[in-house]
């Protein structure tokens, strides 16, 4: 019996989401800390810039990324000379697209989690002679860990489902850059309804399970 669906798109989506989450967590926590704890000029402007992908049409985001990272752009050329292959229209391009979409969710949630840590704990750690990095790593981060974990789950779920930006940046190359959400589009267009329905069900269930986990984590953080 042949499987009802091609497994590659699901596997690719999981891989893209996992790698993208890794990037988003590191960059997102750093940005969230900066926005929550450091006063500087242009703080709210930076926040707005980071949040932008949340409200822009995915095609606009994808367009920007294509222009920024394309083979003719300086960043694209630098990447190609370092890695040896182009960034756009590869699965790595899909990672970039998914990361850009997930970053705002990560930063917003993590900023709230870090902002919710009573700064008196951080002040206490400073008076005890600890450096800013140690204050962050041993006090702020552990105390915000549940919120940050929830943010990471959210970022993973968002990356898993990215469509528009991924299509723009990575294209729709079956067996190479065709993620689950793009495969659904493809199957529907081609009238392969069973395949589309199966993928839809799997993605919906996964998203529900992840959101449920996020709420559990966030709820436990309140107590």
């Amino acid at each position, binding site marked *: 019996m042949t499987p009802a669906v091609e497994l590659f798109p699901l596997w690719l989506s999981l891989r893209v989401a996992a790698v993208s989450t890794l990037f988003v967590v590191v960059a997102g926590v750093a940005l969230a800390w900066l926005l929550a704890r450091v006063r500087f000029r242009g703080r709210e402007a930076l926040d707005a810039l980071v949040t932008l992908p949340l409200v822009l049409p995915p095609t606009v985001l994808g367009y920007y990324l294509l222009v920024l990272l394309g083979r003719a752009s300086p960043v694209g050329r630098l990447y190609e000379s370092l890695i040896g292959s182009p960034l756009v229209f590869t699965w790595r391009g899909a990672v970039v697209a998914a990361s850009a979409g997930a970053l705002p969710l990560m930063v917003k949630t993590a900023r709230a989690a870090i902002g919710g840590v009573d700064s*008196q704990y951080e002040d206490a750690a400073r*008076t*005890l002679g600890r450096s800013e990095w140690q204050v962050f790593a041993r006090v702020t981060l552990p105390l915000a860990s549940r919120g940050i974990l929830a943010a990471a789950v959210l970022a993973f779920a968002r990356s898993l489902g990215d469509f528009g930006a991924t299509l723009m940046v990575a294209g729709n190359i079956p067996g190479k850059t065709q993620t689950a959400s793009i495969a659904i589009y493809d199957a529907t267009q081609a009238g392969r309804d069973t395949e589309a329905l199966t993928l839809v069900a799997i993605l919906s269930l996964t998203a529900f399970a992840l959101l449920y986990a996020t709420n559990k984590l966030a709820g436990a953080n309140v107590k």
Partner: protein
Amino acid sequence: MLNARIRKTFPPDSESADSDGGFVLDVEFAAPPGVTILFGASGSGKTQTLLSVAGLTRPDEGLIAVQGETLFDSSRNFSLPVSRRRVGYVFQSLALFPHMTAQANVEFAAHGLPRRERRERATALLERFGVGHTAARRPREISGGEAQRVALARTLASEPRLLLLDEPLSALDEPVKLSIMSDLREMNRRLRLPILYVTHSRDEALALGERALVFERGRIVAEGEPHEVFGSPASPGVARLAGVENIFEGVVVSRDESAGTMLVGLKNDEGVASCGVEVPLGRAGVGSRVTIAVRSGDVLLAAAEPKGLSARNVLRGRVSAVERRSSETLVRVGCGGVTWAASVTRQSLEELSIEVGREVWLAFKTHSCRVFDGD
């Protein structure tokens, strides 16, 4: 020795400002080794002073130095980072790290040592404060008194050269308070660090303080040994904080320059001067408003009209309440719309058979009255 000169203006909308506009902290003091009490009402600038010394807030202007090393100098635009000041700060909230055990909290402060020594030092400090048994527990699993001791142990583990304690006992009940006070005295004897101790409890100030600085609206209005400072309060506010029970507003009725006294008519609830009190001559002229303060311990109570007393103030009134406290009994006596408090011992209460409704006489010396201009 700590030397500090701090000036900082808080805009009207900041948290620490009064409701009626901005607030200016403007203080200068020196604190030798031993306990220096920072005494005053909340919002008088005590905590802001601690925050400035610790480096958690930046004064607009000033100079702060410990044992000759400068922590802050506005004239050179210099401010040592908090983490390098070696100023131990026990917050009012304690700020024990909730995600670490008591042991880990203390070890966190003993950094820069090999792991083994860090563990040994933390264990020794917890033992010294009698909370060795809490080592494996998280802050939320230990009592308030234990948490206070863990916080002290943690602060000492960082080897501070100065200690800042912000109302360390305010949240504790009496027996725990007394036992921690004796720990603090012991700690003070052994370490001889300058300790700034913020409180608005007169009992704590008298029990622990070697010196006291009285804060009022961002300024130091009095300093000296605690019993001196409380014995002759510098303002009605300090008198109230120092536990002076009889504080009344009144108007100067007459002045007698040759006798060095003046007569003050006290205002009752309706604002009418109804009973006259002779007080030491002050600057206030006839018709000016003044506030007078008399300790309940300076007021004598008599069951019959006293004759041939040297005390010039004798008032007749009726007992309105008898309040028994741990060490003394406070008798409230209404005279012409003003309620006075006199403290007596339990024995005299019985011998004089004082009870509510009974007619009594109050007597106190002219010089037992402190007079403050205005109100």
